[in-house]
């Protein structure tokens, strides 16, 4: 399946490596590095590489905003690099892609904040944090239809941007929404206090847009405060950390009874989509088993595979900035982890090529596909993210 996806010839790649830039906040998301390694190893050893040539991933770690500009300059000045994958870039992504403009085509593995969504210099093959948030909001308005909703969200550019996009959707449906922003360094009691401040104890729906540790704290607070309402969150909360936490707490099931939004498919069900199954199998076979359900791994794996597809379509000998930039923008999908067709460059969120989000409810040991890309019930984001498109 993956060989067909990248358009490879199969077998081991040989010859001079083809260099691809990879800028990523590896300190925060080491699983993204693992997934990139798995994808490259797979492409080089089994899928035939890029027209037979192996990939060499040139890494640049981004820990602080200054790193983004430095990584961008490094890749822009490297004449052998015409394509760069931005993994999860937590600091200053706009500087990275601005530096690459005109020098290297760019794929955003995880569009996280407003500068990512609006970036004309790069493309993303999943709906990103924007899609997950908007999808969750649409699910709340269309499916849950509450009167009141409580939202606890990280106080950063991504959180503020996401809230500003989803609030009009929720309020247009006549739902009273109370939001509390918590700093990324919030402790568990701070998150518990935020939940109480939003009126979560009496709200019909609680929505959580936090980092992984915030998900755990929110779960604990909801348990302690005995808040038993519909919870809507994103795939950030269904990763390894939550499963481990619930196991440590002696919970009966590995997931809380929440609704999780992701990019159309559910990686935990038995009847997996072939592309998701291929990803999980690859991670198992190449040492990435411990990280396969993390936030960063699937999207980085997908980005590397999609980059390989574009390069093979262009032809590695024909790969220049111009051909690759046109190639990444012409991507029509579907990608491995994102359901639906893709179209890049549609305003206002010009970098976001995908327009679907699924929602999956976990209910005491059973996954219920509320809105799935596998059965045609997936949420179409276009009316919200592409109003003029």
């Amino acid at each position, binding site marked *: 399946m993956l060989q067909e996806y990248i358009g490879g010839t199969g077998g081991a790649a040989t010859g001079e490596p083809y260099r691809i830039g990879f800028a990523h906040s*590896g*300190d*925060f*998301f*080491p*699983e993204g590095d693992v997934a990139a390694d798995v994808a490259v190893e797979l492409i080089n050893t089994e899928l035939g590489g890029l027209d037979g040539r192996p990939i060499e991933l040139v890494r640049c770690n981004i820990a602080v905003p200054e790193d983004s500009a430095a990584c961008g300059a490094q890749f822009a000045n490297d004449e052998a690099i015409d394509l760069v994958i931005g993994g999860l870039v937590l600091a200053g992504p706009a500087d990275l892609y601005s530096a690459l*403009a*005109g020098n290297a085509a760019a794929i955003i593995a995880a569009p996280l904040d*407003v*500068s990512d969504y*609006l*970036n*004309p210099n790069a493309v993303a093959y999943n709906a990103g944090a924007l899609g997950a948030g908007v999808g969750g909001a649409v699910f709340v308005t269309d499916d849950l239809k509450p009167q009141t909703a409580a939202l606890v969200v990280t*106080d*950063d*550019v991504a959180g*503020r*941007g996401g*809230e*500003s996009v989803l609030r009009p959707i929720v309020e247009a449906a006549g739902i009273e929404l*109370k*939001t*509390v*922003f918590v*700093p*990324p*360094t*919030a*402790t*568990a*009691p*701070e998150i*518990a*206090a*935020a939940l*109480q*401040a*939003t*009126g979560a104890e009496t709200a019909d729906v609680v929505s959580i847009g936090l*980092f*992984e*540790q915030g998900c*755990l*704290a929110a779960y*604990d*607070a909801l*348990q*302690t*405060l*005995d808040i038993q309402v519909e919870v809507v969150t994103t795939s950030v909360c269904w990763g390894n*950390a939550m499963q*481990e*936490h619930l196991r*440590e*707490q002696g919970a009966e099931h590995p997931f809380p009874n929440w609704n999780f939004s992701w990019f159309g498919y559910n990686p935990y069900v038995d009847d997996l989509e072939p592309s998701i199954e291929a990803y999980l199998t690859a991670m198992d076979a190449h040492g990435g088993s411990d990280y396969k359900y993390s936030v960063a791994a699937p999207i980085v794996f997908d980005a590397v595979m999609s980059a390989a597809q574009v390069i093979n379509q262009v032809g590695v000998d024909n790969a220049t900035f111009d051909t690759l930039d046109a190639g990444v923008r012409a991507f029509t999908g579907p990608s491995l982890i994102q359901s639906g067709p893709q179209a890049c*460059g549609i*305003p*206002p*969120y*010009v970098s976001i090529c995908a327009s679907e989000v699924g929602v999956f409810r976990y209910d005491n040991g059973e996954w219920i596909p509320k809105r799935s890309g596998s059965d045609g019930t997936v949420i179409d984001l276009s009316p919200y993210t592409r109003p003029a498109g």
Partner: protein
Amino acid sequence: MTPVSLRWPASRWLAAIVALAVAAVLLSPDHRRVFLSGAGIAQGALIAAVSLGVVLTFRGSGVVNLANGTIAMYAAYVYAVLRSDGDLFLPPLPVVPNQVSFGPNMQFWPALLLALAVCVVLGLALHFLVFRPLRNAPPLAKAIASVGVFLLLQAIVIKRFGATPRTVRPMSFVDKSRVEIGPAVMSQEQLFVAALVIVVAIALWALFRFTRFGLATRAAAENERGAIVLGYSPDWLAGLNWVLSTTVTGLLGIFVASINSNVDPIVIPALVVPALTAALAGGFRSFGVTTVAAFLLGMQLPLVQYLGVSASWFPRVDGQAIPGVDTLVPLVLIIALMFLRGNALPGRGTVAARLPSAPEPSRVSMALVGPVVSAATLLAALFWLSPVYRGALANSLIAIVLCVSVVVVTGYVGQLALAPMAFAGIGAYVVADLSTDRGWPFPFPLLVAALVAAGIGVAVAVPALRISGVNLAIVTLALGVAMDRFVFDNPKVNGGLMGAPVTSRPRALMIDEMSLGLAPIVVERILPVIRAIVADTGCGVLLVEQHVHLALEVADRAYVLAHGELVTHGAAADLARDRALLESSYLGAATLDG
């Protein structure tokens, strides 16, 4: 009858004001419910856990330990890894293995004891390798060393485990089940840690009040030479206090991480700002006052969050509560404490008061010629270099200015400011607001921004400068955190979704008075950007510009308006050659067709 004296010490007035504020909060049922919530009490316990170690370290060794939260975090990592993997991870040192494995699934008590043993070693290492050599150094040098310890321990953890949170297995004897005490609803874990913090505070008070060790430590703090005469070694006392401090901090840090269910390199170290505030309230001496202050700081947090959602008078931006008000509370308290209490941070008699002053250059060539030549060369390079290198040089100059600001404060005032980037950020946002939003011409935005940043700096620093020691370091640390949340995270300041109009591929872009308020060199750098937008997007640009030569330089066509009437129009290049027209006309508009 003895008349009541109104001549209280200023700090007592402050305590009275805080007590009145708390009483006012408790009068309202809603506010009382939120203020006494379990979340606030638990947050207070977390702050107290870090602040007790701060006081302990200061009493024992005279060090204002800015790394105390990081020590708690480090101990929590040791414990968490032992519990989950059975591995004792070791710092990256030559010939030292990365870890010692004890087999998986270590139980609670062995893991706790082993982690505390690591804390003992850490305390000894900090004493013998870092702070004992600095025994006679000024307090500022010790505070700077503690910043180094902060960065080192954090870097060890990030290098080893990354910055992602690590799950902490629950304690064996308490869990997260619900406990209700009056209006407070909290988990068993939170209640346990809150109680433990109070017990530790009482135990520390008793230790320093009633034992020979405590009395000796207090004696050494008052007069080290006197302690030596009495037969106590200040070194030995300091070492023992360091061990006690890291062990207590580590113990509480482990339980703090258990409350959070995970540990990462950021969350617990970030508690050091409110912890320092609480320690300051306790005069870096009183475990009791410090603990009470820490709980109050924690309990104000849910109240601020609640008011942000429910109170109509709460300051808002874009309909949402203004961010970071809770971080302003420690800052305001620190400033008030320093202003009202002259001896906010008690000194220790035998150590030097301040760092040596920055030496003045001895030769004229160094004092005058060197800086003038350097400045002239750099200024000239700004005009000669290509745009890429010019940008790099400009960034380097900015970094030099930031470094020089630290040198000025440390070298000439003898204190340490930990928020140079916050002041730079304040200046940058003021420039952006005055030039972009209000249209002030160059160079006034720069001058006013510098004045605003300087004014905030003076307002924050003056209370600290009245007294010696590391007060400025504490107040600027709190300022940096508060500015980050209150100002830089504020959508009204950072622009929120600004930028969307340009990056969403518009068909037309209107620019009004582009050069107004901007430095010529900035304008010069913007022109290629506009050309690139036109080239990339094909959009048309309507530029309204009084800088005639600039407009005609970039425009394809130009329209000349006078008193609202179109005077003439034509190709920009043709108009640029018509000097008579330029000199006689009032030029109001030009366009660059895409």
